[in-house]
């Protein structure tokens, strides 16, 4: 009986026709293609994109530079006296090498300020440049001003 069943299946080519049916059915389904660049997919809120620095909030603790697995953050600061004659840290140099960043978010996690002074949740992923030097070192002006409308995002809700 099983032999008969086996021969039946073999002769009728049913497996091949079923396969044709699957692809034929998919011919008519709605396609999930997103026509980039006219349509773009919106990244999620936690998406780790381009990082951004807020100079005023930064307390120059250099914890982000210490935590970075690839050591691409270069921070220089010096002490200055402000109006109230207190010694404050002033940032000289905050360079990040965009070419080597792997967007792992460890610098954001290490930052002790609330809200964070360096954050990656900027929903930006189109980072290609025409010149190599445009991505080489992002000096502090570039880091803080490349996009005005970005707000830091802190994760508060529970699942």
């Amino acid at each position: 009986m099983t032999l008969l069943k086996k021969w039946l299946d073999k002769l009728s080519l049913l497996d091949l026709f079923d396969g044709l049916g699957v692809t034929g059915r998919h011919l008519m389904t709605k396609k999930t293609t997103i026509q980039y660049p006219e349509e773009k997919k919106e990244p999620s809120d936690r998406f780790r994109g381009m990082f951004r620095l807020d100079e005023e909030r930064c307390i120059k603790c250099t914890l982000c530079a210490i935590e970075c697995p690839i050591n691409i953050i270069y921070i220089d600061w010096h002490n200055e006296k402000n109006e109230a004659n207190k010694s404050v840290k002033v940032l000289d140099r905050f360079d990040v090498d965009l070419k080597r960043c792997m967007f792992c978010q460890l610098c954001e996690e290490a930052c002790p300020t609330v809200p964070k002074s360096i954050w990656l949740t900027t929903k930006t992923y189109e980072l290609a440049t025409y010149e190599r030097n445009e991505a080489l070192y992002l000096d502090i002006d570039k880091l803080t001003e490349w996009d005005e409308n970005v707000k830091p995002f802190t994760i508060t809700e529970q699942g």
Partner: protein
Amino acid sequence: MSPATLQTILTAVKILLIVMVVPAIVGFVIVYAERRIMGFMQGRLGPNRVGPQGLLQGLADLVKLVTKEDLTPTRAEKVSHFLGPVLSVIPALTALALIPVGESIRIGGVETSLYVADVNVGLLFLLGITSIGVYGIILGGWASNNKFSLLGGLRSAAQLVSYEVPMGLSIVAVLLMSRSLSLVEIVRVQDRLHLWFIFPGLLSFFLYFVSGVAETNRNPFDLPEAESELVSGFNTEYSGIKFAFYFLGEYTAMIVVSSVAVTLFFGGWLAPFPHLLPGLRIVPGIVWFLIKVGFFIFCYIWFRSTFPRYRFDQLMNLGWKWLIPLSLVNIMVVAGCVLADTRHGRGLRGLGWVYTGFFILLFALSRLRRRLAAAEAR
């Protein structure tokens, strides 16, 4: 102008049309259709940027291929390297000369037939011409000075030569039914008998189409040009217009196989059900022919997107151990039915009903068994 000169000029015009129009159709329509339809079957949109809905994609491909650098490997055999694609395209285009697209048309008082030549040994000529196409692949594979190309070329040659036998034998069955080798005559016989040869020749059609797919190196028999295994096989070292020629040869062969299948089995330019639906005869024969050939090209594309590939030894096994015996059995069965009633073809009609009933039964039983097995497993 004497009628003979007129006919010669008309023949020359028809040849020119074939040589110019068919590559254009291949490049613009079939390549675009294949990419678009395969894309749709795979759940994505195919090319849709060049021109409205991507219709000019063929033009873009053509421009790209023509402007590409035409490389010949340093130690390749130059003459053979050049001849390979040429020998692949010419037989395919020549075969198109025989295929009748319609009965005849009158344009402005001039009546001309819709085929270039009505060779009275048409089928034999076709088989011979497609055999020459094998040379193109062998030469291309060998002349490239590349181990992979050589392997691909030899494999392809073996495959093509092996699958010519079941192709020829399945055509013999049609020959028995139609008593003539001429393609135009075969369609006329189908018209006269009001019986398309697909009904008594279901098995022949199946064998012919499978052999045809193998002859044109298409999935599931496309091992010689499979990308993942031999890096594109015999056409690895070709680029630019020579590659375009190989492409053209392959797609033209596809058209030839589909057209011959339509002519032999599906009535060529005839409308379906001429008795039941006489209104359908308003549509000119050429439109019917194009619809039918288009459906078969769609089947080619459908096969390509569905099936995995046969390994080479399994491919040869299939051809020699299954298709050839089946085609011999088929010849005997058809011969018996033809003998049963040589005048009106009642034997053939009976065979057609037997086939129909048999396959319906087979499908029903298979589906039933499948459904039972699924219910059991749950």
